[in-house]
């Protein structure tokens, strides 16, 4: 839980890249996965991602992500499987039956193609999330701010985005501690019904709210102590500069994009 949704301190090829290169990767991959619906193309893209994760030494963190989103992915897979079962597709069929409800005739047709469709949609969503997560795992919030600033994003916006990524791990940690504290004083959240469990989670949200408000207050005071004024032009201690590695990574991104598009055109099956 502690490492989820936050930067991981490593000195890998991916970590050393200019944040802007990783932002470009995220944008291209988000657009690509939004329109690519070919299983072959998505599988190719997945292999590219896999290579990037292994080179970036973040494979085990991606497994954690996969574990966290497995229920979502399963839901997407089953949703498209069930919707597909009410459409008659070409190709091999596993089970087909006709039935009538209130004088309406339906055909239930579970085909191998429905499984393909479910897998394609689940893989698309996973790749979309992974593209974002790859950037988050390898870019700390100070680099995010620097990268956004260099793209002429107003400092107030860049600082706000960076602050969100600074605060998220704090809130995750606070929630875990509050949960432990409440259990320790007798609040049952382990051996109880689902309803009682839900009610107790609502109870826990109150101290979390107070803690978040109190942190927000402390952060606004700190901004005052450090004379942060968004109307005044800031200077910068660190500069970011693209290197040969960035050019290499950008080339890989472009080549992977082109190949994915080619595979999409050649192997697309209407779904």
């Amino acid at each position, binding site marked *: 839980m502690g*490492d989820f949704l936050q*930067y991981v*301190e490593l000195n890998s090829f991916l970590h050393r890249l200019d944040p802007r290169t990783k932002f470009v990767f995220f944008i291209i991959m988000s657009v690509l996965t939004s329109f690519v619906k070919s299983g072959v193309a998505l599988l190719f893209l997945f292999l590219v991602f896999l290579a990037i994760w292994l080179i970036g030494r973040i494979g085990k963190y991606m497994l954690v992500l996969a574990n966290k989103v497995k229920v979502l992915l399963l839901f997407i897979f089953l949703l498209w499987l069930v919707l597909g079962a009410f459409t008659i597709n070409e190709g091999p069929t596993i089970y087909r039956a006709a039935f009538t409800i209130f004088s309406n005739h339906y055909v239930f047709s579970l085909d191998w193609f429905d499984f393909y469709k479910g897998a394609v949609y689940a893989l698309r969503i996973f790749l979309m999330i992974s593209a974002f997560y790859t950037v988050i795992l390898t870019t*700390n*919030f*100070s*680099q995010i701010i620097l990268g956004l600033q260099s793209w002429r994003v107003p400092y107030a916006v860049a600082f706000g985005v960076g*602050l969100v990524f*600074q605060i998220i*791990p*704090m809130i995750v940690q*606070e929630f875990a*501690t*509050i949960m*432990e*504290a*409440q*259990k*320790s*004083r*007798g*609040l*049952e*959240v*382990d*051996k109880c019904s689902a309803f009682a469990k839900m009610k107790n989670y609502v*109870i*826990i949200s*109150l*101290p979390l709210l*107070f*803690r978040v408000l*109190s*942190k927000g207050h*402390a*952060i*606004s*005071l*700190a*901004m*005052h*102590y*450090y*004379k*942060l*004024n968004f109307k*005044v*032009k*800031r*200077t*910068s*201690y*660190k500069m970011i500069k693209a290197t040969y590695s960035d050019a290499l990574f950008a080339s890989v991104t472009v080549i992977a994009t082109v190949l994915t598009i080619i595979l999409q055109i050649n192997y697309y099956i209407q779904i």
Partner: protein
Amino acid sequence: MSFKIENVSYKYSADTPQILKNINMEIREAEVTAIVGPSGCGKSTLVSILSGVIPTLMNKGELSGSFQAGEEVMISVVSQTPENQLFGYGVEDALAFGVENMGLASDEIHERVESVLDLLHIQHLRKRAVSTLSGGQRQAVCIASVLAMRPNLVIMDEPVSSLDPQGKHLIQSVLNQLRATGQTTVIVDNNLDWFSGIVDHVVGIDNGEVVFDGSRDEFFAKFDVQHQLGVIIPQEVEIYRELSKRIKGLQPFSTLDEAYDALHDRFEKPEAAAALDPSEEHAENVLEVTDLSKSFQDGFQALNHIDAGFEKGKIISILGQNGSGKTTLVKHLNGLYRPTEGRVAYLGAETSDKSVAEISRDIILVFQHPEHMLFEENVYQELTFCARAQGVPFSEEEALSVLEKYDLLKDKEELPVNLSMGKKHLLTILSVLFSSANVIILDEPTLGMDLHLRNQLEGIIKHLKDKGKTVILISHEIPLVFKLSDELLVLDHASKLEEGSVQQLADNEALFEKIHIDLPPVVRLSKKLGFKTLACDAERFADAIAAGIKNDGFTGGASNG
């Protein structure tokens, strides 16, 4: 430059009481000024005015009087929680943040970052991520980030309240460096113990008014003022205070060496030793851990084959630096963590098949930060939460009498989070009185408490012991640990170093050197004076000295305060 505060009064709104009443004081150039006073006396409001938070960010209140701080004057604050103050992933990012806001040229920023890294001797931290620093290192970086802005005045608000002894030492050395450079500094902290060596000037505030303004030595001589303000003073001064009640004409002292010089030739050692004979009776173990090990998913070994027993009706303190495994151990005791190896047994029965809530009926853990625990709509409900959650019967009369005893009756209908930090903490501890648990674990219970609240806490712990309950204490307040504890369990780097009575372990100086914890002054002084049985608090020490004092006409009490 000096700062003059003249006739400053403040209230948060027209219909609320006056928080500050006609405050007059001076913060002198190149001096360290301590602002002390009990919880809720107005210290934090004064900091807000000095730092410009009032009226810049909070402009609804009524502020009068004058405080000379123009636009060109830079005043900055170091808060008690550096994680809420540091902006930046890496140490260098955090150090540069304030200077970048000032719009300085890049080479000037680099020069300032280098100079604070050198000044505070933290060059070795520059490439580290802030999140990987210890509490003390984080606070040192926070101080450095403020100093990089070259402030005319630095205000530190309880800067060591959540640090372990090593963290406190680091901040003490940082403050010594600052003092040597002539930095004008204000430290707001009711615990004068840790920074008494560097403070020049003390301002005491009570109920919104300045009740003391003088030098450190003048403050140490005013016992009644110390008591009124609930200030925690160095134990050496406490020893003098206790002795001066019993011995007439005693030369004042505030250091260990001065105390030794004042006492060593007036004291008959054998009688003193005879006067102290604490019982070493052993009771049955109510809680036992056997061969307990814990490794986390990332491979970090937090506990390494720990064997320990916790006796019925005893106060047992767990000592060790941050990261030694103290909190991990107690989280195994109440079931929050499950061991990788070994077992935890309560009254001989393993606890592994019980939920944390079920275990809490026998073993309850009170967390360090009360805000993690408080969620009821009023103080009364919060007090009785444990009883209701565990189905323990209680009467309203009983609950109200507890509130009255601890001065919380008037806050009965108040939202608990609105109480002062010390009172919030007291409330979470009081709620344990209504629980069925026989083992009570308190993690840093003194956080945010002034001396008055701390005295109440001591009373509660002793009351629990008298009721036959076992109290397990984790605290960085070493004098308090020695004063209250019967037994000590010492951890270092996930392993148990020693377990035994306070008397046994206090003799083992190498043990405390190894864990970088100083023995309390009263223990060191009693060793130096040759006590066979060491005194662990100032009162018992003073009794022993008074009993062993040579008949030279000095007994009979002093007139200070």
